[in-house]
């Protein structure tokens, strides 16, 4: 057997409050296509960032060609021979293909770049990748997504990389382009370059992969499975099957949901390229979950309902009133609240006090002819944060100093104070530790029991299944299944969101 090119053992990476990686092993042979599988949040991104030198692990060893190495910085990783192609390609759109390929290590004599040799070597690399048709003088911004990917790969080759990490390279490609990509990957591996390939599409992994490593909740659960022959069932079971049990509050038992008032009706909602003809409703006191992969259009649907994006067609009817597209203040006035996906950049005023963050949507209540009743504002906000058990207490503390879970509580507290009737939650537990999660779950259920409608988006299937009353499964901008949460399980949902992606791409 050939000696492994890379061997990672017992890698542990700790972020404040979370063990993002908690003992990961990975072994890559020269020239192999090694697939990394895991659900959203399992730790794949953290792992590849560790390999790319962007994170330094707290524990564990990395061996490269039999010798132990430390990848202390991106430059160190590149010099070792590891190149990374991130999901968001890190090319500079205004520079030419050749300039991008050689960026950072331009061939030069005494400071003058050798543009001629830069171009000719770039041309050679593109040829080696099977894409001699890409003009080396073209601005990268004017290439297609597939073309940019090839440039990114050429850049990896220019560093003499022996291992290229590809993070969901097929996500932005259509079927023909995926075929091309696969051909290029095969050429690479034939020339001895190893590839760590990440994708959610099981079919692709069957086609291109040699071996599979599965990670879950920051741990390796299976290493070096044969990619072609491992049954799909086994793979999905490995990816799911929680080791951590969440405590979900019991579903409400009072008035049957069917007899409750309809709060929100979405009909034929469409935004081109994001989601298509989406229709559903939410009743008062009901928690509706949207399950699907990142990029399936879930957040976009939520933001469109809220008016943060304007739809191309379709209507949003809230409490009997049709909302004007793209009008957030109107939606808020009628009683909608959004806890957006990117808490820090979309919801919080990080340097401002907790109290002001909580009262941001309710200023009118404390205003007399524009004059702010700060005492009453502070009292109400403080009460809200006590009720939510916000820690550390102290309403004048900048919200930046709070943990992720407590920041999320502050965002939810904003809408509780406002007294909203429909709460849109986008990834409410991202970056929230287990203890605070349980509190958030209980809070959301309590809100629903008090008659608030909740629309929940989460990448974590168990969360959607455990918390929601009804689940909508979204795949590539379409609702593919609607069912009570009790009729679905994690396996079924994952099958729906993953297995179908290839067939969707073929359309």
């Amino acid at each position, binding site marked *: 057997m050939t000696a492994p090119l890379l061997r990672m053992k017992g890698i542990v990476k700790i972020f404040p409050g979370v063990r993002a990686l908690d003992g990961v092993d990975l072994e890559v042979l020269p020239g192999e296509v090694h697939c990394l599988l895991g659900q959203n949040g399992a730790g794949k991104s953290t792992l590849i960032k560790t390999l790319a030198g962007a994170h330094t692990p707290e524990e564990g060893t990395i061996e490269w060609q039999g010798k132990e190495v430390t990848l202390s910085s991106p430059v160190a990783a590149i010099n070792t021979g590891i190149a990374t192609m991130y999901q968001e390609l890190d090319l500079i759109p205004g520079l030419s293909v050749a300039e991008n390929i050689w960026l950072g290590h331009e061939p030069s004599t005494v400071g003058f770049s050798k543009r001629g040799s830069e171009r000719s070597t770039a041309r050679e690399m593109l040829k080696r990748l099977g894409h001699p048709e890409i003009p080396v003088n073209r601005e990268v911004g004017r290439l297609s997504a597939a073309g940019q990917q090839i440039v990114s790969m050429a850049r990896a080759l220019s560093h003499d990389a022996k291992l290229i990490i590809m993070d969901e390279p097929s996500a932005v490609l259509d079927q023909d382009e995926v075929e091309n990509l696969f051909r290029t990957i095969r050429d690479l591996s034939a020339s001895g370059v190893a590839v760590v390939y990440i994708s959610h599409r099981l079919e692709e992994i069957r086609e291109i992969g040699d071996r599979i490593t599965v990670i879950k909740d920051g741990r390796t659960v299976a290493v070096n499975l044969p990619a072609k022959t491992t049954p799909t069932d086994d793979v999905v079971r490995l990816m799911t099957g929680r080791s951590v049990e969440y405590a979900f509050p019991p579903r409400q038992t009072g008035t049957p949901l069917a007899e409750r008032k309809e709060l929100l009706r979405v009909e034929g909602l469409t935004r081109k390229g994001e989601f298509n003809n989406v229709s559903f409703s939410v009743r008062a006191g009901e928690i509706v979950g949207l399950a699907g992969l990142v990029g399936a259009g879930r957040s976009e649907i939520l933001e469109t309902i809220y008016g943060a994006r304007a739809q191309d067609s379709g209507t949003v009817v809230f409490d009997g009133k049709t909302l004007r597209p793209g009008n957030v*203040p109107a939606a808020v006035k009628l009683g909608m609240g959004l806890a957006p996906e990117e808490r820090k950049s979309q919801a919080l005023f990080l340097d401002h006090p907790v109290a002001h963050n909580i009262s941001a949507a309710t200023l009118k209540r404390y205003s007399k002819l524009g004059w702010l009743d700060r005492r009453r504002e502070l009292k109400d906000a403080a009460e809200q944060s006590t009720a939510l058990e916000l820690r550390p207490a102290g309403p004048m503390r900048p919200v930046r100093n709070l943990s992720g879970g407590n920041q999320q509580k502050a965002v939810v507290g904003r809408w509780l104070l406002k007294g909203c009737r429909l709460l849109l939650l986008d990834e409410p537990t991202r970056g929230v530790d287990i203890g605070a999660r349980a509190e958030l779950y209980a809070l959301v259920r309590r809100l629903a029991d008090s008659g608030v409608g909740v629309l929940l988006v989460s990448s974590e299937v168990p969360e959607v299944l455990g918390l929601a009353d009804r689940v909508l499964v979204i795949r590539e901008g379409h609702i593919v299944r609607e069912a009570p949460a009790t009729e679905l399980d994690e396996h079924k949902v994952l099958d729906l969101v993953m297995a179908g992606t290839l067939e969707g791409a073929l359309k």
Partner: protein
Amino acid sequence: MREQLTPRNEDLGAAAGAPVADEHARIERAAAESTAPKSAFARLADSSAGRNSGLVLALVVICAIGLITKGDTFATTDNVWTILRLAAVGGVISVGMTFVIIAGGIDLSVGAIVALASVWATTTGTQDIGTFGIIFTSIVVATACGVINGVLIAYGKVVAFIATLAGLATYRGLAENLSDRKTQSIDTPSGFLDFFGAEPGGIPVLVIMFAVVAVLGWLLLNRTTFGRRTFAIGGNPEAARLAGINVKRQTVMLYALLGFLCGIATIMILARTSAGTSTHGNLYELDAIAAVVIGGTLLSGGRGTIVGTVFGVLIFQTLNNIFTLNNLTTSTQAVAKGLIIVAAVLLQQRVAKTSRS
């Protein structure tokens, strides 16, 4: 840094209804702390002036330099009023600029607005209407310019820097056209100059106006929903939008407010120079931005104080005064001013860092 999470409360509902006694007390205490009256000393330490200790220090040092170099002329009552009277015009604009910068914007056109308003308010047609005509025209013209800036930025989605750079060129160009580059002196007998040139109780009206604007500005920024929204859209515009704040309307109102204050400043400069000209307000934008930044307001938005700005204005004007008393050439003054801006900002950053950690 993260505290240990307490065990999950089995029933959050109960917790909400009846908070644990000491938790409640703690919140009450915290709530009381920031609103209840405190001892004068505690308040001073906590006040903007206390937080702006670097600025106080800078002003003291500058005054000391003034005393040492030209003690006989610098420390006279007359000279103090001169400094304040000169500070007043730019000060009024700087107060408005503070709002715009806290909201994450910038306005380069303020000087040009003053020029245009001063010219328009002193045309013979306007002067015929009398004092009221001059005041009314100054305010309306300047506010309208502010509204135009605001609409371009909020609804036209033009970057503030560019929109107001265009304003800088356009408004002053209009002023030159309107006045034919001639100085239009005020010779209305209706008492405009008498009123604004007066010194009731020895205090010049211009200084009183600056003080009033500063106090009202402070109240508007710190005690009203308008002020809170200003901080919000500067702190995180996307979060403000998603919280249901009408960011566009607020943006227009902010630039309109600054325009309005430029109108006030126009009245003041007309009173001081008794003439309108297209050269009025030259480089006011730089002086105002410098004063605001020296005062500790972040150019990136979300944080800032009126008190800091007032200090910034005073520091700047006192320096000018000392330079003039010491017969420095204007070129030397300009170099010194530039150095002092850099020094003040560096000092501010140090103080801000130590007070935060």
